[in-house]
């Protein structure tokens, strides 16, 4: 076991180098098209991965304290909503990612997400398994069903996102990358699951539905595509401004590095939130 542990530790830098380099094989994959094989082709064998010892814990209380320490400007009502949500299932102040889905019905915000990205250091790209709603196998049996079968060392990025608050669409997300190696039913993971990320993990967006973020440029409204709901029907809309100074992550309120210097007079141009109304 000790030898295996040493071997895995020794593999980490190699994987890091490989993940930074192996995709540079220009001939085979320098393309903007998705030329990746599908999941079945790339990982012909699938299995269920037990993840009870990979729990991605997060200490929300410490996190919020750190945010306040760094001068956080997040509204108290949103913090309270996240705290209430967290308290539903926290154990000793920590949040376990696969319990995120439990009892979220009483909240009006957008639901949580748990994602697993499996990748090997090659140019074929990762494979994602995303859960957007309660999954019995995941939440109760701590098992990822139909995961790629790991026959050699993989990089697995576990990430989770809380629900969005109903007021300002704030959510916390956190992730951790692991080196996973396993044969048969035994999987070895190279580090503990507790994460300690600072305030960037506070993220904001829009409620979804017919709300989106956008900027007026030369008389036109440029929408921010990752705030636009897929449920919107194609057609013409009349935008009505809901909030022209929405709450954004503290990280986005820093000065901007440009031309070799940090310019504190320069800020990210935050978009406004609009409601798209049918004409």
């Amino acid at each position: 076991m000790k030898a295996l542990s040493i071997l895995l530790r020794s593999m980490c830098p190699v994987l890091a180098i490989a993940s930074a380099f192996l995709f540079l094989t220009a001939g085979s994959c320098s393309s903007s098209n998705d030329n990746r094989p599908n999941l079945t082709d790339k990982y012909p064998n699938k299995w269920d991965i037990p993840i009870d010892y990979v729990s991605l814990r997060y200490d929300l209380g410490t996190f919020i304290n750190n945010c306040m320490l760094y001068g956080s400007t997040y509204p108290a009502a949103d913090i309270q909503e996240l705290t209430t949500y967290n308290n539903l299932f926290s154990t000793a102040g920590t949040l376990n990612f696969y319990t995120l889905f439990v009892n979220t019905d009483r909240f009006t915000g957008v639901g949580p997400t748990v994602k697993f990205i499996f990748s090997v250091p090659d140019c074929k790209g990762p494979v994602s398994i995303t859960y957007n709603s309660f999954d019995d196998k995941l939440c109760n049996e701590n098992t990822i069903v139909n995961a790629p079968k790991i026959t050699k060392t993989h990089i697995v990025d576990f990430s989770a996102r809380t629900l969005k608050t109903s007021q300002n669409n704030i959510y916390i997300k956190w992730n951790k990358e692991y080196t996973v190696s396993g044969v048969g039913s035994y999987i070895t993971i190279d580090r503990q699951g507790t994460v300690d990320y600072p305030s960037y993990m506070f993220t904001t967006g829009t409620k979804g539905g017919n709300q989106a973020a956008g900027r007026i440029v030369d008389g036109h409204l440029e929408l921010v595509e990752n705030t636009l709901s897929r449920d919107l029907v194609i057609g013409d809309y009349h935008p009505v401004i809901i909030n022209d100074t929405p709450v954004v992550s503290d990280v986005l309120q820093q000065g901007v590095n440009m031309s070799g210097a940090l310019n504190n007079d320069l800020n990210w141009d935050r978009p406004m939130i609009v409601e798209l109304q049918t004409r």
Partner: protein
Amino acid sequence: MKTSYFLFIFVLVIATISCSKSRETNEMMKPQTEDIVVNINNNSFLKNIHVTKVHGNIGKYENFFLDADATIGISSSRYYPLGEETVMAFYDPIDAPATKSAVKDDHAYEIQINGRNVFAPSTKAEDNSITSMFGKNVAFAIPGIIPTTKGGESNGVTLYAPEIVRISFPSISSEMNRYPLCYYKEFEVRWNADTANANGVIILIKWDGAMVFGEDYPDSYIYHSTCVSDTGIAVLSESMFDGIPDTAFCSMFVLRGDVENMELDDTNLRVLAETHDVLEFVLIRNVEYGLDSNQ
């Protein structure tokens, strides 16, 4: 008394007019959307993006892509700008078939780096013994292996292990600015130069779909890389950020090293010495001058 009364009325009128003007000014500054019509079509929605692109020639680093049954080397890395350097020697028989006896685990005991059997169980760890190898030539001796490309000794290869690389700009000084905002134009990177490193420095921009504003791109990845001279400064082309959206949470790898591939019978070995530093940052495409600024 009458004078005071008129004075009070006068002040009230002036204040009212002033407030009214102020409100008008605020209303005028507020963006107007009454005349705007926005068309939502299939191109309006979030699209997954997959880009892997090498910008220019990466020189000797191409050797890293040759197939190898095992990798032997020394590595120095830092995945957290305020964290400690991780330095180690490693021997990694990647997917080694059982028939290739040369890359069995126990073969590692015979490997010598600068004359030391670093993987032998009897070897005791010495503080900084691996760290001190950086910035110098390092001799790898693998009994029975004949170098195919170059090498100073008949049973091994000598590589130049560059000085441990550290990104100095964009700079991180505390947890508060751990994830700096970086504008995509005139993106300047600075690091500690190593004039003895002839292989240049690889700079890699990586994005895996994470966003700081709005929804993550669920299944996207973009890798842009380039090789630059090891002068300690580089201004990245805008094309190094092609496809990466505003407020994307990105990583920048700055890596330098040396690598040789060697053969023994039907076994391919890769020997390398590398050092890399990683900076996580938020890519910004839309900027404005703050209200306090005169610009």
